[in-house]
């Protein structure tokens, strides 16, 4: 607690006044009874105001009331009355006892008060510390830790201004947090600066400005404890981040090995075919018929296309993984994209009846031409893997809500069990036996990556007699609707 000099004087004066008043009041009470009470009892009773005054107001008022008590006792209660003549050494003893009582009590009370104040202060400190560690608990972000430290330091030390400088991960990540926010940093240099350091390294500094008296010993110790707490939290945050990173790496390692095993299998199949066909043709011992030679060459050609698609898928996937898909959006005619896709896979899809139904007045779509083309290629080629040869693969599109379109690719393949519907878009997820159907298990997850990068959604469903892939795409882009191209008259 802090008081101004004037109020402190006033308080002291009040103590003295009340001490005198209480002693006088007791005298007044006892005066009528002075015939009944013997002098020893009276002297004893005078100890009451002395004790009381010393306890309440301190040593000064206690001594005053002791002196006053002696004078009053002597004047009113010792014979001859109304005189201040000290007869016996006994009387001097009474005065001494009064003084001794005042001094002893004030000592005791002072110590008790000091103890209490100390207990309160240490309780307050531990509460503050507890609050800080509670706030810091579980926070794994440097900026947040800095913020918490700044706020708590400001409150606890009644500072004008606090700045926390954190350079946990080396200079490039360094930053400052000021509190109170929006206030200009004082022009003077900070009153205290306290490093945030662990045994291993220095992680930052707290700067504290305060207009009041400098930090006393306990406060400084407290600030040091704050700094240590924060430093430990920072270190823990760094460790937690490292752990997360390690976990991600582990996960991606696991995926990579899954990818490798899937890919090496997938690459070997076409390579084996190509190798077999080409070595057959190279071997001079057989005179291949024109037709057989042609068939072998066709096979080689198809398998190289297959390999090329596979490599394309892998590249797409690695881009999606790296978050580097960045669609290059332009307003596009969906039909044009679809036709371009169908041309790319006409060889794969030639055994199916492809039907398209896209209204002529479908608005332009703000998409990356090549990426959406890729989606169509993958969905149709996935359909050809599962639907029986000769069946219909249908592609339709329509405006669904005012600001999105719904595209549906359906095939007459077998239904997919409900529990697989969600997961078929996962990487390497294959519903059927991997040996029976070729593919890396990447096609659909690439579709998902692309559609989501466009702000759309993709899902699969079983219709009564067909299987459907659906995706919707927003047709507004940067808040704009499809650009209207004014029709031109002849």
């Amino acid at each position, binding site marked *: 607690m802090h008081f101004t000099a004037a109020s402190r004087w006033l308080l002291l004066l009040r103590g003295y006044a009340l001490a005198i008043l209480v002693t006088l009041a007791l005298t007044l009470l006892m005066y009528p009874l002075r015939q009944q009470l013997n002098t020893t009892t009276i002297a004893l009773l005078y100890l009451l105001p002395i004790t009381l005054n010393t306890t309440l107001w301190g040593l000064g008022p206690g001594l005053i009331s002791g002196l006053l008590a002696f004078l009053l006792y002597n004047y009113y209660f010792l014979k001859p009355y109304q005189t201040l003549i000290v007869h016996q050494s006994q009387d001097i003893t009474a005065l001494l006892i009064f003084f001794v009582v005042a001094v002893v009590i004030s000592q005791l009370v002072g110590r008790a008060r000091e103890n209490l104040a100390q207990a309160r202060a240490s309780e307050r400190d531990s509460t503050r510390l507890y609050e800080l560690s509670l706030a810091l608990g579980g926070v794994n972000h440097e900026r947040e830790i800095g913020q918490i430290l700044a706020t708590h330091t400001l409150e606890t030390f009644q500072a004008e201004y606090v700045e926390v400088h954190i350079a946990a991960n080396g200079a490039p990540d360094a930053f400052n947090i000021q509190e109170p926010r929006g206030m200009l940093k004082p022009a003077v240099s900070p009153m205290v600066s306290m490093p945030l350091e662990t045994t291993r390294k220095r992680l930052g500094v707290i700067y504290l400005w305060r207009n009041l008296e400098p930090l006393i010993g306990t406060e400084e110790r407290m600030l040091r404890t704050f700094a240590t707490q924060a430093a430990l939290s920072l270190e823990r945050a760094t460790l937690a981040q490292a752990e997360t990173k390690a976990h991600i790496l582990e996960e991606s390692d696991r995926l990579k090995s899954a990818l490798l095993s899937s890919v090496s299998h997938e690459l070997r199949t076409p390579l084996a075919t190509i190798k077999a066909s080409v070595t057959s043709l190279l071997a001079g011992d057989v005179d291949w018929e024109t037709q057989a030679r042609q068939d072998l060459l066709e096979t080689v050609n198809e398998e190289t296309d297959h390999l090329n698609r596979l490599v394309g898928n892998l590249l797409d996937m690695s881009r999606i993984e790296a978050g580097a898909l960045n669609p290059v959006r332009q307003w596009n005619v969906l039909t*044009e994209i679809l036709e371009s896709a169908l041309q790319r896979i006409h060889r794969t899809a030639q055994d199916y009846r492809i039907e398209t139904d896209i209204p002529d007045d479908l608005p332009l779509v703000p998409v990356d031409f090549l990426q959406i083309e890729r989606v169509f290629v993958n969905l149709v080629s996935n359909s050809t893997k599962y639907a029986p040869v000769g069946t219909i693969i249908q592609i339709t599109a329509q405006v669904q809500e005012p600001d999105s379109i719904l595209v549906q690719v359906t095939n007459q393949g077998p239904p997919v069990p409900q529990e697989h519907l969600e997961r078929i878009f996962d990487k390497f997820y294959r519903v059927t036996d991997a040996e029976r159907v070729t593919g890396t298990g990447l096609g659909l997850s690439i579709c998902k990556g692309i559609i989501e990068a466009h702000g759309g959604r993709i899902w699969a469903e079983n219709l009564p007699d067909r299987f459907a892939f659906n995706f919707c795409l927003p047709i507004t882009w940067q808040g704009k609707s499809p650009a209207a191209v004014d029709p*031109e008259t002849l």
Partner: protein
Amino acid sequence: MSTEPHILVIDDEPQILRALRTILTAKKFRVTTASRGEEGLALAATTLPDLVILDLGLPDIDGFTVCARLREWSNVPIIVLSVRESEGDKVRALDQGADDYLVKPFGIEELLARIRVALRHAVQTPGGQETIIKAGDLSIDLARHIVTRDGAEVKLTVTEFKLLAYLAHNPGRVLTHQSILSKVWGIEYIGDVEYLRVYISQLRKKLEQDSRHPRHLLSEPGVGYRFSEGE
């Protein structure tokens, strides 16, 4: 001195060089090869090829630089080889003066077709302008602004005609979205691909037998359009 067209191939992959040399020689071309950009530029200056096939990824200087430096002194047709994942590179190479591009891996008929187009174009450029372009069932009279399909006139709007005329004037060549937009609509429309998309789909409806499987107005995804004279 041989009259066979002379082709300079610049690519750092020895397998590709070997295959192209074998195939092109068999197709009666004279072939010179270089595996580095600087070497290619030097060979271009000393051997004066009729056509350059240029890979974009070279070990010393990149293909764009080779393109630009060749264009400083030569109009030799340049066909760029690129990979699927780099549409931006194709556009950039075309902007740097390349005449065409081909995506690796490519079929040899495709390469030969591109070579034929580029060589023909190189021969035509200095000569007079054709005023009537015939492409399969289409006939485009540039002077009289008349287009016929199977002999019947097709009515086109002014912009449709300008677009068709620009494409048909460069048969077999890929024209970037930007170059078409600036040529047909004006330089300020260079970013408005939607105009191009809409007009192309209108033209396809009017001119193609099956607008869904166009034979003349071909999309080059991510790059531009190409006019094909059809089989």
